[in-house]
């Protein structure tokens, strides 16, 4: 490749962040190229330095605490790190533009979206107000905003998350940049919206022949759109190659782990492979264990797997207030007449997009939210209206694990106190020493060292915190656990570890799960049966295999088609399957 084909060349880039404990290297002498008109995928887990790299290219690293300490970023041969701030401003939003992960907060709430797009055009292209408005309308049209002549005067809060991200894209492509940086642009969006935004980005890239740097933690997302892939791990680039090569012949164990840890859609492994199967903590390669495939349909018997939970016509309506006297004018029907049952030792998957009512349903079953109507039967006993004391007793049998591992542990309590608290509440397992011994045992069970007992939650990573939450839920020896998006906030590689842990625990203790998720691939892997929810109602209910193979409902089909295939389309078209890395 001749140098004129290279748009951006990052050379030995180094970034440092100053912390209370002294300077920490966020990026350690990395080098890679972005060819003209091509898409480069920058992949890594949180904290790998991928976002910092993109911010460095925009010269937007917050300083303090961050600082570029060495290297070059050559853009069309000019070192962006050397030019003046005034020159850099002419490049930002014009030659290089960027879209961010959080469409909700990335737009200015007090300006109309039309103004915010036009502002860029007026700044860089010297357009008049009316010219900029005409072009803004055209851009809104191009990014697929319905009814642009009306939406141009809308404020950000009047739009959905997907629409806001489209506005961000319109703003970014307005000046036809040479490089578009997309920093996890779809992570905060629902799967169906994610698919639409990815398609849009790909179309626009081809249309404007721009280069794209696409940052993500999920290799599957970029399989289709990236030409080259750069894999980052702890501030270093561990592998870079053509996308096809990365998928067919990954060389670094970390890349192998990333590729293998996504729940596959066609086969059914007994356990998911994780990054730690391929490499040790300090980055040394090891031989991965062989994957064991099992029959996806687990059989059950009436005697061994009786129905433990039955939900009949459950409703939860939230009042909407309005009018002069602030009276109830309408109801938001979060859960609207849902019926199903769960058998002991099995997992019911609950799938749907944000706002479909799945979280409300999960909490209503546990009476953490009081239902508006319907019945909840636990082992035949109707618990819909029982008093708080009997309900408190029942909580020993029914537990919940939440989505956000950062919010679900009390920051002022040690891990030991958090795990022993449930025993203290229910006055089980004797005295303090006995309880601590049991907490130690539980920690071991979820794969954490005993010394974690005296530590505080902030000293642990997201995945470790989720393990602590599981240990806490297990402290009361429950039979039934609601997992509410319990792996959604985690990086894919950590997600696989937690899913494996949940499966192991189920096998060992014969646990019953309701597994709530927006990700059909994850649900297909872990659940026996699946409910698809939309707007508070169940639209489809079948076994996990059945849902995937023969979806009957339109909405289910839409969800399924939105799952990233996780394989480059070019390979799929040629009928090439990915190698089994554990073979």
């Amino acid at each position, binding site marked *: 490749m001749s140098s004129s084909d290279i748009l951006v060349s990052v050379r030995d880039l180094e970034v440092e962040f100053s912390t209370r404990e002294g300077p920490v290297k966020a990026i350690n002498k990395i080098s890679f190229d972005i060819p003209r008109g091509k898409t480069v995928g920058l992949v890594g887990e949180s904290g790998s330095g991928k976002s910092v790299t993109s911010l460095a290219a925009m010269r937007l690293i917050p300083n303090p605490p961050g600082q570029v300490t060495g290297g070059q970023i050559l853009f069309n041969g000019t070192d962006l790190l050397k030019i003046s701030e005034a020159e850099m401003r002419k490049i930002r939003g014009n030659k290089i533009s960027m879209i961010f992960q959080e469409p909700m907060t990335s737009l200015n709430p007090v300006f109309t979206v039309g103004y915010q797009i036009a502002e860029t055009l007026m700044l860089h292209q010297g357009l008049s107000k009316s010219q900029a408005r005409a072009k803004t309308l055209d851009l809104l049209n191009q990014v697929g905003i319905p009814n642009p002549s009306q939406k141009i005067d809308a404020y950000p809060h009047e739009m959905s998350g997907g629409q806001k991200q489209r506005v961000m894209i319109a703003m970014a492509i307005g000046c036809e940049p040479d490089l578009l940086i997309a920093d996890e642009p779809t992570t905060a969006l629902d799967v169906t919206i994610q698919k639409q935004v990815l398609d849009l980005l790909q179309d626009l890239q081809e249309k404007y022949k721009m280069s794209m740097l696409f940052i993500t933690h999920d290799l599957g997302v970029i399989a289709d759109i990236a030409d080259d892939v750069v894999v980052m791990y702890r501030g270093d680039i561990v592998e870079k190659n053509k996308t096809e090569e990365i998928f067919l012949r990954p060389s670094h164990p970390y890349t192998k782990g990333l590729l293998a840890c996504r729940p596959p859609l066609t086969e059914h492994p007994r356990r998911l492979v994780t990054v730690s199967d391929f490499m040790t903590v300090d980055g040394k390669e090891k031989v991965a264990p062989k994957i064991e495939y099992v029959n996806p349909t687990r059989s059950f018997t009436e005697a061994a797997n009786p129905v433990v939970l039955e939900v009949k016509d459950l409703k939860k309506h939230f009042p909407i207030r309005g009018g002069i006297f602030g009276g109830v004018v309408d109801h938001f029907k979060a859960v609207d007449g849902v019926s199903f049952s769960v058998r002991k030792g099995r997992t019911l998957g609950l799938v749907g997009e944000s706002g479909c009512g799945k979280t409300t349903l999960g909490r209503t079953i546990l009476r953490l939210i009081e239902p508006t109507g319907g019945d909840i039967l636990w082992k035949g006993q109707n618990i819909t209206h029982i008093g708080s004391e009997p309900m*408190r007793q029942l909580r020993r049998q029914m537990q919940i694990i*939440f989505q*956000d591992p950062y919010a679900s542990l009390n*920051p*002022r309590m040690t891990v030991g106190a958090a795990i022993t608290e*449930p025993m203290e509440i229910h006055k089980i397992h004797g005295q303090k020493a006995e309880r601590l011994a049991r907490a130690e045992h539980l920690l071991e069970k979820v794969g954490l060292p005993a010394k974690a007992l005296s530590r*505080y939650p902030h000293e642990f990573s997201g995945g470790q915190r989720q393990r602590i939450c599981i240990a806490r839920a297990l402290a009361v020896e429950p039979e039934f656990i609601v997992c509410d998006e319990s792996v959604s906030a985690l990086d894919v590689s950590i997600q696989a570890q937690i899913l494996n842990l949940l499966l192991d625990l189920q096998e060992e203790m014969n646990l019953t799960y309701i597994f709530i998720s927006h990700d059909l691939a994850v649900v297909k892997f872990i659940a026996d049966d699946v409910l698809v929810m939309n707007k508070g109602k169940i639209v489809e209910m079948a076994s996990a295999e059945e849902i995937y193979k023969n979806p009957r409902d339109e909405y289910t089909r839409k969800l399924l088609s939105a799952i990233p295939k996780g394989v480059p389309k070019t390979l799929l078209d040629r009928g090439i399957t990915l190698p089994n890395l554990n073979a």
Partner: protein
Amino acid sequence: MKFLARKIKGNSLWSDALRRLLNDRFATWSFVVITVYVVMAILVFFNLVGSSWQESMGPSREAPDLSQGPLHWMGLDIFGRSVVLKTIQGTYTAMYVGLVSSLIAIPIGVLFGAVAGYFGGWVDDLITWFSTMLANIPEFLLLIAIAIAMGKGTTTVCIALGVTSWVGLARLIRAEFMKHKNREYVVAAQALGGGHMRRIMKHIFPNVLHIVIISFSLRFVTGIKSEVILTYLGLGAEIGQRSSWGLMIADASGELMQGVWWGLAAATAAMFPIVLAFSLFADALRDAIDPKLRH
């Protein structure tokens, strides 16, 4: 104080915060100043220092004189009393006002804020309505109204400050409780079978405690400054009861034109370090407890 910081072993957010405080020069010096004033106030309370402040030491309004011993360093007042001793006595009044007004405002504010924020519904409506009413009366006028109703004196000043200032704290605590009660760790405690008391006291309260501590520090700032103004307006300590910086500054309004500056200077010099120390300490606490808020 860095050597002390290294001695803190724990790894909780509190010991982290304490370590950061001890590494913060401003915070440690503020703490030293606060300690000195508190010790002084305690000594005055037990009549170990300055108990003879009402005795006449010499001629009326004698100018500062370094040759006649420490009691004459800051001159004498209209009755020939030592300004140094009056200032020391005033330390007690200042700390008393800060402490007592805090002890009134903080429990009320925390209790009402916690109950309103946690339970919501009509309890919240009622408490919010009541505190909005109090907040609607301009603070200064409410202070006067309370002072009129209760008669003059230092205790009135404390009660008036306490009653007017719980509203702000209650609002803060209410907002925090509303935020925290829906956090997943609190819902988790509920799911584990924890009752309301456990959720309020063991889970949410430790997470809002820093607001209480900061507010305690800031109450002293407001208390000491308000005492001066209310005393000037004739609502605070009356002459002869006890000495206060407010009285000394109020007296200066008549004396300054006659060249008697030492009473004012002594009271101001005594007040400046302690008010500054409490302000800086509150700032440092905020930074240490929540580094995210650091600007």
